[in-house]
């Protein structure tokens, strides 16, 4: 699964998910909940770019 990069530098790695914010490891970027935002800076998903 593909990783995605936030402009602030945070990388979303589907293998790791974002357990602190209720996203289980193995969750593809496309399957993130709509209201999920970057845990570092708060930018929405549409600001991320594929790595």
């Amino acid at each position: 699964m593909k990783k995605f990069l936030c402009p602030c530098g945070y990388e979303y790695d589907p293998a790791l998910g974002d357990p602190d914010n209720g996203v289980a490891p193995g969750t593809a970027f496309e399957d993130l909940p709509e209201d999920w935002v970057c845990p570092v800076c708060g930018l929405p998903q549409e600001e991320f770019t594929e790595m």
Partner: protein
Amino acid sequence: MKKHIKSNVYWVGKVDWELRKFHGEEYSTNKGSTYNSYLVQEEKTVLIDTVWLPYGIEFVDNLAKEIDLNKIDFIVANHGEVDHSGGLPELMKRIPNTPIYCTANAVKSLKGQFHQDWDFRVVKTGDKIDIGNGKELIFVEMTMLHWPDSMATYLTSDNILFCNDAFGQHYATEALYNDLVDQAEMFNEAIKYYANILTPFSAMLAKKLEDIIALGLPIEILATSHGVIWRDNPMQIIEKYAAWAQDYQENQITIIYDTMSNGTKHLAEKIGEGIQLADSDITVKIYNIAKSDQNDVITEVFKSKTVVMGSPTISNSMLHTMAGIIHLMKEMKFKNKKAAVFGCYGWSGESTKALKEHLESAGFEVMDEGLRIQWQPDEEQQLAAIEFGKKIVSNQK
């Protein structure tokens, strides 16, 4: 001394004529800077941003001469960086219970820097506060423009956008407004500020400008946090930003080199000659990076279609100054730019290969393996450098 802006809005900031470096030693501020703080005195009295930390006490002392500090109903902190929040520690000693309106990320950045549990009131895009006399403050988050905590604040009726770091310039002036200063100086500082600070966020900035325009808020004044306030046709700088955010380029090629025995310098000049021979409309600029202001050079890279980077070989690589400027270029995340490399050497000659690798990792499209000249360039090799310059021109077409 406070200065009147419009209606009940005043500037209460600090003009810093002696500042020459900012962000530690990273950013040259050859024309000084200003830290713009604003006082809005409607039925509610609001302070928007403060000044740089070293001027914090002076700022609060001056503010206390203008107004009873206890009359301040609340503070707006658009951005937590110390050049805007630096007045808070002293101010909050004197009026500790005053609410501070800011983004959730600014609570983190302010607590992280000052370790104080002030009365933070978190706001989001679209949140409004009634400040009386029929006026409101409306908040617009500016996440990652240029920190996670950044926001702008809009004052209705007076149509002032307190845009914080956006549209700013490190430019000391007593004149306050964009129409009262030397236009060339001001725009030089504005583009340098954009090139060195905002380029990495260009894609987001382009969208945010569209968002701001879509809000349909009339903007009469852009009240920046550094440099002049845009009151004369404020759209002109918004339009500049829109252009700068679109992988901006002028018809320019910039040659950047360092040299030990002037061989690489001679190549730089001959390459420049070749570029001009191939196309005299192209602006060619040549910088010895070891003798130049790195932020001025980044501004020239920002304007360029192609950069040509030269270094002699030392210890099987390039001079460290060249690695330094390429690192800065990488940080800026420049898009859609070409590069070429050159250098003199004595025996092994790895500088061009090292330059090429560094530039490619910085996102530049590097033309061929570059121009490598052993020892000092003779006449034939100088002609080769001129031809290399011509090839650079045809490569960028």
